[in-house]
């Protein structure tokens, strides 16, 4: 193997070229197999060739035939629902997590309850939430909010607990008040944990919203996918799946970018340590 070849291979690794090539090769193989209808004919009815799904996706984006297939509108619905759930969950759960982390008695009394309830999937509460809040957006947002707040309570709790006790004690000996300690020490050691909690919560909230839309509803990406299944229009279904992928991955990657920018000080110090 020549040196040039090795340099080329290395260059492709760093620039994610091989990753993209792999994805492209996979799609290409899929396209060919689907066009030739290798093996069973029915299988390729569901696994629509990617080019066809992409064409449908584009046409649904630019000129949707009717409102049920308006991908842009339904992506927006899913996104705002997930966003409201995320914000609500963070606003409710972070103070609760701080309280549990700060007062040891509260922690000892309530954390076992939280830890026991945490594995309960929030989707199981969805039927109750339909009864309480109706079949519209609110019940879905509440189901997602439950999921988000469990993640955020636990993450901010551990964030507060991870504060260096030497730091707190020395601040206290130097005469700092509790508010000062919270603002100057605890907040900064909790922030990275809260940020990673938000990263997990973004994925969780979109997952719950899409699931509830599929179980019951008339709007959102989950509904689009299920609607297409009912009509056996699999290229439309694949464009719904593609939109879900774009929304989910886009939101998470956007947050990761923001996280790196905002918490630059944290990543720099941990990299050096």
């Amino acid at each position, binding site marked *: 193997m020549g040196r040039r070849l090795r340099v080329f291979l290395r260059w492709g690794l760093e620039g994610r070229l091989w990753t993209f090539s792999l994805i492209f090769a996979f799609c290409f193989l899929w396209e060919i197999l689907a066009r030739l209808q290798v093996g069973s004919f029915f299988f390729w009815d569901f696994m629509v060739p990617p080019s066809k799904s992409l064409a449908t996706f584009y046409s649904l984006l630019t000129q949707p035939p009717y409102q049920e297939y308006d991908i842009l509108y339904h992506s927006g619905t899913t996104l705002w629902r997930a966003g409201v759930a995320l914000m609500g969950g963070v606003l409710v759960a972070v103070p609760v997590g701080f309280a549990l982390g700060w007062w040891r008695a509260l922690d000892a009394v*309530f954390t076992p309850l939280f830890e026991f309830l945490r594995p309960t999937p929030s989707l199981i509460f969805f*039927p109750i939430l339909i009864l309480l809040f109706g079949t519209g957006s609110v019940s879905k947002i509440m189901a997602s909010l439950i999921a988000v707040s469990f993640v955020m309570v636990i993450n901010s709790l551990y964030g507060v607990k991870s504060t260096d006790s030497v730091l707190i004690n020395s601040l206290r000996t130097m005469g700092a008040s509790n508010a000062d300690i919270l603002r100057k020490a605890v907040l900064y050691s909790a922030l990275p944990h809260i940020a990673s909690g938000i990263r997990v919560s973004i994925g969780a909230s979109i997952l719950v919203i899409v699931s509830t839309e599929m179980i019951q509803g008339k709007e959102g990406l989950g509904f689009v996918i299920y609607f297409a299944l009912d009509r056996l229009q699999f290229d439309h279904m694949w464009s719904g799946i593609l939109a879900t992928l774009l929304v989910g991955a886009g939101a998470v990657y956007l947050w990761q970018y923001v996280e790196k920018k905002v918490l630059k000080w944290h990543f720099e110090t941990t990299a050096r340590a």
Partner: protein
Amino acid sequence: MRRALAEMYLTGKSYKLTTLCILFIFAGVYEFASRTHLGGLRLWIFFVPPSRILATFFSLLLDGTLLEHAVYSMMRVGAGLAIGVLLGTPLGLLIGWSRSLDLVIGPIVDLVRTFPKPALFPLLIVISGIGEVSKVILISFGIFFIVCINSIYGGRSIDRVLVASAKVMGATGAQIFTKIVIPYSLPYVSAGIRISLATSLTYLTFAEMLAAERGIGYLVLYSQRNYSYDTMFVGVMAMSLIGGSMVFAYLSLERRFLSWFYAMGRRGGDEMSGGA
């Protein structure tokens, strides 16, 4: 009196008592409010008094319906978890160990992890039917990426110098695997499995609510649609009992076998979780 209280405080018993007391007070207030229809009847049609929920729980447990639904749910989760872990762990370790695989396949795993997997369930139904297979595939597919990501972290954490020096001193592949690879990666793999336990229940509930004839998720949605609200709450209770005891059992296993890791003051990657 004060001494007794102080002793309870020091041993931590008072906290457990307080937790129980708070639960009882909550149940009491709930019972009272739902019996007297506090603030209007409308809300309390749904919120059955806890005594009735408990009575229904035991009657359903005794006549075997609850057990049947629970067994079906547990079987699906068990099969999905087993497949997901068995496939995800070796692949993740391999990706984490090899730097070029990490660079090529790592981003793809990361991308698919962010994808809300329930979106694929209608497709799975069409391909493999409404039966058990589509549910098990969904659960194992969802679990696979969590386990895989955590195993990638585990594979990355393996000390390369240690492996190289073991090789120089003539260790066989099996020895390297059991003496170096497993101790280094096990905490990460185990954290992945711990997170997957909760996540698998989310996928299970979703699949059972969308298309099933048995299972706890089906029971809850079905009884909501049939106005039998006590059964609905029994289903919710059963699901949280299953989830809580699964994770609790796993945590005690982890504490037993990974105590050396936690004694080092580290905590296996909770932040990589993908749960809901």
